[in-house]
């Protein structure tokens, strides 16, 4: 699957990174807590979140996240968009809530970064 497929499945708007829609995606991590993302997300995963501040982009950059999917119709702040453009991290915005977004992607073959905690490194 590519980011373009994700855009279609989630009926999402591409806010940053229209030129990167051919990027392949296989995994995702969903959280509104960036420390959880730092603890468990793996490189090249998508980050599904309802947060919109620049720290979401910083966290994505630190972890080499492929794209940020903002859920429940959230729009990023102006400085978040600016930072994402600078760091070349795509942002998509969907009106689906986090649970529905995760479910729709999972049903189409996107896996979580981890299935449950304990034992992972």
């Amino acid at each position, binding site marked *: 699957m590519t980011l373009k497929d994700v855009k279609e499945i989630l009926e999402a708007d591409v806010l940053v990174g229209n030129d990167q829609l051919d990027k392949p995606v296989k995994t995702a991590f969903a959280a*509104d807590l960036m*420390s959880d993302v*730092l603890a468990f997300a793996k490189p090249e995963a998508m980050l599904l979140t309802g947060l919109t501040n620049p*720290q979401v982009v910083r966290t994505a950059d630190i*972890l080499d996240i492929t794209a940020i999917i903002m859920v429940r119709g959230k729009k990023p702040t102006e400085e978040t968009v600016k930072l994402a453009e600078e760091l070349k991290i795509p942002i998509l915005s969907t009106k689906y809530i986090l649970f529905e977004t995760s479910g729709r992607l999972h049903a189409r073959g996107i896996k979580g970064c981890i299935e449950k905690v304990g034992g992972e490194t």
Partner: protein
Amino acid sequence: MGVTLNFEKSFEVEGGSFQNAGNVSGQIKGILKDLGVSTDIVRRIAIICYESEINIVSYAKRGTITLSVTDEAVKIEAKDEGPGIPDIELAMQEGYSTASPAVREMGFGAGMGLANMKKYSDHLIITSELGVGTNVRMTVMNFQKILHPDLPQITL
């Protein structure tokens, strides 16, 4: 047997400046990539550095983050002028937090920071003095060391 210092640099971090939080970590990540450090180590250092930076921004007046790279290890020292940690053991527990609502709004302050710093480093030492500040020293051993565990261990 000596340890060769390949790179060392200190970065200032301003307390309360949420706008710039993550800037230093991004710079350090870039430096490590340029130095040819392996991807896994770059990632681990980037995470512990980012958590350290968020901690300084969230709790302290100011701080410094120092990066040292040797053949043996990559080290991060995060030193701040802040309130200090009254009970380090308690602070290390996942879920324990004294963060403000502003920090929580950003997606931090859930008591995972120090736990993450411990998780991603091979060695972590915290010293803290109330009313003076906190010093966190973290070491990630270089990849070569992991590939050759029989090499003599050097305390850095």
